[in-house]
Structure formats: structure tokens, C-alpha cells
């Protein structure tokens, strides 16, 4: 088992009242799964992804990642864990504007203190694989949306994570670009990477092996 959420509650207090963002959520993910989280705006999709990605905390419940209790960890241990095992893909790509394609992909390796020669090899492999060797010296604003997202995914994959978290990865793309990205996710999944994506789109969700429906922070089993 890759991760398990048990009775997760997350809320904010507004005007003295608790507003639940996640409510009594139970959720297991096995390695190699491709899960789509669906639900209307405000149903808690992004919040859930942030919690799983350890970017955000929660108030109650247990979260075990690779048998380790995330809910009892300190910030440092937690960030060490997600840096090691999780890659993020965002709807707005969030490439670093000041860095070239090559440097964007290389950055996670820098933070893992990987040697220069090894970095070069890894980045070159990745550029090859995504067919963007010719674009390696361009800056993000010189790329189309689809290309930017490709770089985003390449960057997420460079550290060989076990899990990719993608929040509306095709939300800013046209249908053709969307399809390419989803196809890519499918291939990655077949190679053994676990993927959890949040999406509005039924067709994107269909790429997954399993769909989790959310409504108002709860599982919607209807």
C-alpha cells in the first residue's frame, strides 16, 4: 500500500463557525494505481491533493504514507518525505519564469545535491523522452501551454517519484493538447508510477483506473 487516509477532517473557522473542507474522509491508494478525483468546484479536490502532497495540513485523522505516520511528523521530516516520493503537476504549470526549460527540469536535482555529471545525464534523458531537446534553452514564456505542461511533467518526473499529484493538469489546455497529456500520464502509469489527478472532465477521468467522487468534502457514493 502506498498511502492511506483515515477519518480525515479539515476545517476553517469563519465567523465562529466551522466550515469543513474535508470531512471524515477515508481513502487508500495502492502502488501503480491511476486515480481521478472528481467533483464540482469547492468540493475539496484541490484540498485533498494538497493534503496528500503534504503541502497542507489537517486537523483530525491519520495519514500513513509508505507505512509512516505523516500526521505525527514534524515539518522537516514531512518535506523530506514529499521531496523524495512525490512530484507535483499544476494547472497553471508554475514553471520558474527566470529559468530555461533545461534549468527548470534540473532544479529538483540541485536541491537533492546530485552531482553535475549525473544531473546532465538525467536531464538529457528526460528531454529526449519528451521530445523537447530543441526547446531546452527557451524560457517558459516562449512555449505554448501544452509544451509548458510537458516541461512541468518532466520536472515532476526527474526525481523518479513514486506518486504524481496533478491538479487539473489540462485545465488551461485545448482538447488536443489535453489528450496528449493524458496519454502521457497513461504511459507513465503503465511504467509503474502512481498518479492521482483532480479533474472536472469525464473524459480525462476515464483514463484512470478508479474514480473518487467528492461533494462538500465528503466521499460521494451516490
Amino acid at each position, binding site marked *: 500500500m502506498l498511502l492511506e487516509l483515515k477519518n480525515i477532517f479539515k476545517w476553517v473557522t469563519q465567523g465562529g463557525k466551522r466550515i469543513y473542507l474535508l470531512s471524515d474522509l477515508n481513502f487508500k491508494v495502492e502502488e501503480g494505481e491511476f486515480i481521478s478525483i472528481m467533483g464540482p468546484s469547492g468540493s475539496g479536490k484541490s484540498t485533498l491533493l494538497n493534503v496528500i502532497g503534504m503541502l497542507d495540513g489537517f486537523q483530525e485523522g491519520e495519514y500513513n504514507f509508505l507505512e509512516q505516520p505523516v500526521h505525527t511528523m514534524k515539518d522537516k521530516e514531512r518535506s523530506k518525505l514529499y521531496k523524495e516520493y512525490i512530484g507535483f503537476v499544476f494547472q*497553471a504549470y508554475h514553471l520558474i519564469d527566470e529559468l530555461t526549460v533545461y534549468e527548470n527540469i534540473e532544479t529538483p536535482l540541485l536541491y537533492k545535491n546530485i552531482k553535475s555529471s549525473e544531473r546532465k545525464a538525467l536531464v538529457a534523458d528526460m528531454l529526449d523522452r519528451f521530445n523537447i531537446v530543441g526547446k531546452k534553452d527557451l524560457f517558459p514564456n516562449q512555449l505554448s501551454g501544452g509544451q509548458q505542461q510537458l516541461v512541468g511533467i518532466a520536472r515532476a518526473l526527474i526525481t523518479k517519484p513514486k506518486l504524481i499529484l496533478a491538479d487539473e493538469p489540462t485545465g488551461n489546455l485545448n482538447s488536443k493538447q489535453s489528450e496528449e497529456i493524458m496519454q502521457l500520464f497513461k504511459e507513465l502509469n503503465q511504467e509503474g508510477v502512481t498518479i492521482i489527478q483532480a479533474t472536472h472532465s469525464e473524459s480525462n477521468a476515464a483514463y484512470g483506473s478508479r474514480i473518487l467522487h467528492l461533494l462538500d468534502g465528503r466521499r460521494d457514493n451516490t
Partner: protein
Amino acid sequence: MIRNYFKIAWRNIRANKLFTVLNIAGLAIGLCVCIILFSFVNTELGFDKMYSNAEQIYRVNMETTEEYDFETWATMPNAVGPAIAQNISQVKRVTRLIKDDFGTTASLKIGDKNYSENNLYLADSTIFKMFDFKFLEGDVATAFSKPKSIVLSLATKKRFFGNQEALGQLITVNNNDTLQVSGIYADLPKNSVMDFDMVYNIMDSWMGTNVYWSNASYETYVQLEPNADVSEIEKQATALIDKHVDKEGQYFTKFFLQPLTEIHLYSANVREGYSTKLGNITTIKSLLFLSLLVLFIACINYMNLATANSQKRAKGIGMNKVLGANRRQMLSLFYVETGIMVFLSIVIGYGVSFLVLPLFKSITGNALDFQDLLAAPILIGLLIIWILVTLIAGSYPAISMSGISPLILVNKSKKKGSASEFVRKGLVVFQFAASIVLIIAVTIILQQMSFIKNKNLGYDPNGIIAVSVKSAETGQQIESLMKGLESQVNIESISAVQSMPGANESGRAVRKLATDNTGMPIASCRTDGNIVQTLKLNILAGNELPETIAKGDSVIYTLINEKILDYLGYKTPDEAVGKIIHTELGPRAIITGVVENFNFNSLKDDVGGYMYYKSRKAPEGIRMLLVRYNSQDLSQFIGQLQATFNESLPNTAFDYQFVDRHVAQLYASEEKTASMATIFSALAIFIACLGLFGLAAFTAEQRRKEIGVRKVLGATVSGITQLLSKDFLKLVLVAFVIAAPVAYWFMHKWLLDFAYRTEISWWVFAFAGLAAMCIALLTVSFQAIKAAVANPAKSLRIE
């Protein structure tokens, strides 16, 4: 990794051109000011340290008695030096030093040409070894071996002789002594209080050979044996007083040693040294303080501008964190960026400082060379400044920005903490408070300066020219000159005097009774009459001094001011006229007239006792003619004056001075302070504006959505401009509230230095507040209007 930081930092710097320019401009200005002032301070602190005996050389100073207000004097009787040399074994060398004719300008005759010379000194021959004189012609051993020898500095030699041979040439001083050039020495270092152009042997003059313990006009320098006990030597020297001077005659009570290296900066309370190269440690301290203030304001500026950019940068920081960066790595990134900016600013500021050196000189009168900017301490200082400014200026952006949570990427980051906003506003308030203090200070300084210029001094210094006649060969020459001048139409009045007001009077004391031990210290000045008319003094009772004194009349006729009148206890001026007055001048001195108090000294000091006297056997000589003229064409008038002068005194240099300029000279340091303060405040305000500009841009960006919504709802451009500007005006108001009392306190203290001072009035504060507000408004409105006219469709678009 480091390479990567540099890369990102450099790209960021290039990406935001406007901010980079504002940032570097602010820092470079601050640094330029600092660099110049540091090198100025460095030269000042280095005064006299270059002499190989610097550590062992001291000037003997003495403490006077109550009669002279316990003042410390740098000059003393010429007997002190020889007495110390004979009696104190730990003293290796002693030299006495006196400017020719007690510090007045000398008239030199070389061949058939006349020259004026201000730095002609008499000294003992020991001075050469003491101060490392390097002889280019002649040598130390033989310089004074022949009687009537004189040595010149290289620059002086060039002035008089050009490239001609100087050795062996004759120079006649004040139409009196004729001296032969026996040596040329390399110019003394410019940062030394030793400012002699030429030196001759004091033993060739009565000043050196006629040793006595009364007239205190001689500086005395001693070089001690290494490791000598200074306090022991002071004790032994002080003991010499009782040995040589009777108790009643003692007007000084103690000798003490002032290290040579402290003379330049720490002589503010020491009277009457001869050096023209005196500085002031207070000036140095306040300059250092001001330059650090400007630098600090520039640092604040940098922080404001850097955080103003934070909105744009936040996403990148968040992303780096998701990709595995920790806080420390982000801190380094910001520090590297700041380091690069500061480095660029230092390079620019340093370069500019070379360009503005001449400007610095014209404002402060302090000459700095390129060498002074290249001195090792300055270069090391630059390195330290680089590190310090990077740490200070980089601290706030680095600390606040490195803490950004990766949640910023999913629009979930908590609202900006009010703490950081508070800090930012606090910084702007500080900047503006400092600016307002400076505006108020400058206004009050300028007010005081104009008050001084327009104050009625009790005499009229304008339109008087003082012509030196001290080197006249005979009294007849002076008389003939006066006769020649009297007939000229554009001359109103002439007085022959010992000194112009407040320059070279003799210090004496007036006693109530002849038997009194102490009296009131006064300035006494010999004149040959007409002084009331020439200076336009206000006579209260009695008469002007008599025009002529009959042969055999031994009476000393005196004209006193009200200060002396009050001391003597007369009820009315009329009462005093005709009474005997007790001074050292002689027993037969009577009061001929009483004049209203006049400010012969600087307005910093209260009026003291002043006495003009005339007698047949005056102890002082006539040194100058005060000529009151009414000519419009000054150069023509001076030409005419010189022609008459040369006719009567053919062998004397024509040397003149305007009395009003002499008076203005008294406030030279305040004038400098005024122009320095003006420049500092202009720079401080400019830099503060850069910071405010950044903050305004930041706020406008932060409130982009709000502005968009308001516009959609119908807000006008002017409405939104007001909305954005209002907040900043509040900050300026807070700054004003802080600044006003601080400024009041400082300026009140500054004005206390003046016995005569202007009032600090409320409008100065109102003016400073308004000025700051206008400047702030101008700066902010640019950004506010830009935000207000922006298309709301853009700002409201969802990403």
C-alpha cells in the same frame, strides 16, 4: 548550486529593469556619499601619523588662571622650551615655534619684488630632526649653521624663484632682517598640522635669545625618549613654574602634553596655536553619523523596493520549495541577489565619488586627492561596506520572502501577515522622519545664517579695507601713506590700528582697584584715532580719542565699551569719562569715551570687554590702516590704493583684507555645515522618494483586484488615486509627528552655540511637513494614477 543562485539572481536583476535602476541608484548615491566621507574622515584621522617620531612628539599646552577663565593655551613664554630641555632628562628634543610677528602676514622682499607670506615660521634647529625634514638642497646639519639662514619648502622655492637657483639668495623679511636661503626641503605632508612654507632660526631673532616668562606667544614641541612617562614629565614641567615665576606673576598654573597626533582634531578648546590646519572631532563625528544615516536610508529603500517586487517573486519561491528547496537555500538566493546589486552599486558609487571630488572640495573646502580614495583603509572599508550593506539591506526581503509557503501556488496562502506590512510602513516612516528632521535642520541653519548676516554688530564692517603697514620701514612712511590717502575723494575715513576687530588684539585685564590681584580679561587695541568714525561705533559719552598727543604727555587715552563700564561699576557712561582705569598699560590711563558694545568676536560669543587706547609710548605697534571707502568700482579703487601704497612704502608687499570678509570668515564652518546639511537632506529625501515609489508600486499591485472591482462598480480615476495616496499621507503625518520634536531638540542644541540666535518658529515645522507631504504625494500619485487608469478587465481575469 552557488552558480545557479548567481544565474537566477542575475536574470531577476535584468528582468526588472525599473526596480533595478531605482535600487542601484538609491544605493549608489548612499554609497558614494559614504565613500567620500569615509575617505575624508580617514585623511583627518591620519593627520601627523606619518612622522617617524609621531608617537613621541607632544605639544606643551598650559592651563591659565581664573583671570583667563582657566583656558588652555597652546602658546607660552619662550623660556618654557629651554627650561624643559635643561631640566627634564626624558625629553630628547625641544623646539619652539612661532609664526613671524605673532602670526600676521609677513612682507618679503626678494630682489626687487615684494611678496606676502602667511606661513613664515621661526623655530629651533631641532625641528628638522623631530619632523623628518627631507632636504633636497642643503642638509639638516648645516641648515642653520650660519647666522641668518632660512630654509624653504620646494613649493615655496618654486613660487619665489621658479626653476632658478635659490640656494644663497637673499630674502628680506618685513624690511627688517635679511636672510640667506640655506636649504630646500621636500614639501611637508598635506595632512600635517605643520604648515610652514619657510623656517628661519629663532636664535637669529630676539624671540629666541631674549628669554622671558611673560609673553605667552610661543608653541613648544617636545620629543620624548621612547617609553617616557608622560605624566611624570608633566609634573616636572609644572614644577618649573614655581621655580621661575613669582606667585603674583603666575597667570598659568600647569603644563601638560598633547600628543602630536591629536592636535589636528582635538584642539577645539585650546587657544591660539599657529597652525591653519585644524579640524574638529565633532565635525568628523557628525559627518560619520550623517553618512551612515544616508546609507541606512538607502538600505531601507532597497528593502522596500525588493519586497515591493515580492508578489511577482512569490510564485517562484513557492515552486522552488515544492521542488525541494529549503528556507536556507532561498535565503542564500536573496542574499546573492542583494550581494550582486550592492556590488554594482559600490562600483558605480565608487566611480562617481572620483567625479564629485572637486564638488566636495568646493562645498567643504577640504581637498581630497584621488590617492585618498585609493588608500588601503578605504578599499578594505569598501569590502566591509559590501558585506554589511548586503546583510542589512538583504535581511528583510530574504527573511520575509524565504518564508513563503508553497501553498501560494494553489492560491491558498494565508493573507500577508500584518507584521510584515507594519515593518514596511515603519521603514518608510523612518525614512521620512529622517528627511523631515533634515529639512527642518537646514531651514533653521539657513535662518540663523541670515540672522547673523543681518544682525547689527554695533559697528559697520562693510566698506572697510584693512591695509597692512606692519612692514613699513619707518613711521614716516605710514604717515606719508595716510596723508596720500586722506586727500582722495572716495575715502571717508582712515584709522591706524594694531588690529581689525577680533583679530590680533592684545589680551589684558582691567582691575577695579590698582591693588586687585585679578581683573576682567579684555581685548585692547592700539589706535591712532579716528576709530569711532571709521568703524561707525556708537559713542555714548565722552569723546573720540585725541587726534594728537602733545610731546611729554604720558597719559594713556582709552575708549572703553559698556562691558568694561559695567564691570567697573559706573552707573552711567558720563560718570566714567575722565576717570582713571587700571590696566597693565600703565598707571596714567584715563577713560576718554565710552562706546556701545559691539560684536568684535563671532556672534557665537557674547560681547567681551574691549578697549581702544592711544599713547605716545604704546607697547604695541601699528599693523594696519583701516580705510573706509565709498567707491563703487572696487578694482579701480584698489589699484589707486596700491599705487599710493607703493609710493610711500616701496619695499613692502601690498597686503590687504576686507573687514566684512574677515567677519564672514568667522562663520565659515557654519556655512560649510549649512551647505553639507542641504546636500545631505536633498539626497536623503531623494532616496526616500525612491523607496516610497517602490512601496506605492507594491500597494498598487497588491490592490489591483480591489481597484478593478471598484472601477467596475463605477469609481473614478481621481477617486482611486485619492484612495491610494491617502494611506501614504498618513505615513508622512506619522513621520512628521516623530520628526518634529527630534528636530526641535537637535536644533535647539545647535543654536545654543550662538550667543545671538534666531527663534525657532512654528512655520519652519509647517513648511517642512508640507514639503514632505508634497514630495510624497508627487511620488505616490504616479503609481496611483497608473493603477487607476488600468483596464479592470485585465486585473479581474482569473488565471
